[in-house]
């Protein structure tokens, strides 16, 4: 291994550390705003891993869509929404729920971990190593044209539906 490979490994570990720190912050945060910041740190780490997986385009899209759109939407939801309950309260569900959650997570983690470790992954016999944006765009407009159009319709419907729903809830409090 030469020095560049060591640098690449170090960067990889840095992104993994970002994902782990963001996850723990989002899980243990007292305020929802801190949880959103942890989420955005974690998503930035996932974008870095996309870069390592050979797709610069998706790394940029991850930053643009996930951090730039979703985290901003959630931050707006916190801002215009409920003020006094921003602090994540500890009293509603007791300690027992946390114990059950830890047990369920450990059981699921053990099952999936043993499956990941135990499987021998064999790649496809013929693979084209074409990771360029050009091939992505071509197959998006030829092979996957229908899902592409469907997802644009889905986004339109989601926008209109969100506007209508948030307008419905206004003006009749306390029912």
């Amino acid at each position, binding site marked *: 291994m030469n020095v560049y490979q060591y640098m690449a490994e170090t960067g990889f570990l840095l992104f993994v550390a970002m994902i782990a720190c963001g996850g723990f912050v989002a899980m243990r945060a007292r305020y929802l705003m801190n949880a959103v910041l942890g989420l955005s740190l974690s998503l930035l780490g*996932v974008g870095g891993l996309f870069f390592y997986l050979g797709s610069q385009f998706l790394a940029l899209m991850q930053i643009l869509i996930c951090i730039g759109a979703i985290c901003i939407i959630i931050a707006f939801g916190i801002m215009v*929404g409920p003020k006094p309950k921003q602090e994540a*309260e500890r009293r509603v569900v007791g300690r027992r729920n946390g114990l059950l*959650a830890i047990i369920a997570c450990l059981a699921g983690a053990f099952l999936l971990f043993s499956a990941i470790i135990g499987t021998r992954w064999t790649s496809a016999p013929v*693979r084209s190593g074409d990771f360029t944006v050009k091939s992505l765009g071509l197959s998006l407009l030829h092979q996957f044209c229908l899902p592409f159009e469907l997802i644009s319709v889905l*986004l339109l419907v989601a926008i209109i539906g969100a506007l209508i729903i948030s307008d419905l809830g206004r003006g009749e409090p306390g029912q």
Partner: protein
Amino acid sequence: MMLTDNITSYLLIALFLLIIGIYGMVRHRTFIGMLISGEFILNGAALNFMAFNRFLAPDPAVGQIFTLFIMGIAAAEAAVIVSLILMVYNRYRSIDPAEVDDLKH
């Protein structure tokens, strides 16, 4: 041992994201906290797709397009859920899932 050139390390990171998401989904007291946990789960799935796409799949464009679709659907879902949270807050004056229980009685 190259960490960056091994599918197992990426799958383990995706597993970590999934576990964090499930734990937060159970533990958080607010709808917005549950939405944040859902984003963790979706990103774990996207990372899985990208790892399989990089190491195993015959055509590298398919996994990337699927991941793009996951991102688009996650954005639409977040917008709808935030507007639903606003509506629930306007009606119940609370975003605690334990207090929104009209269907229980």
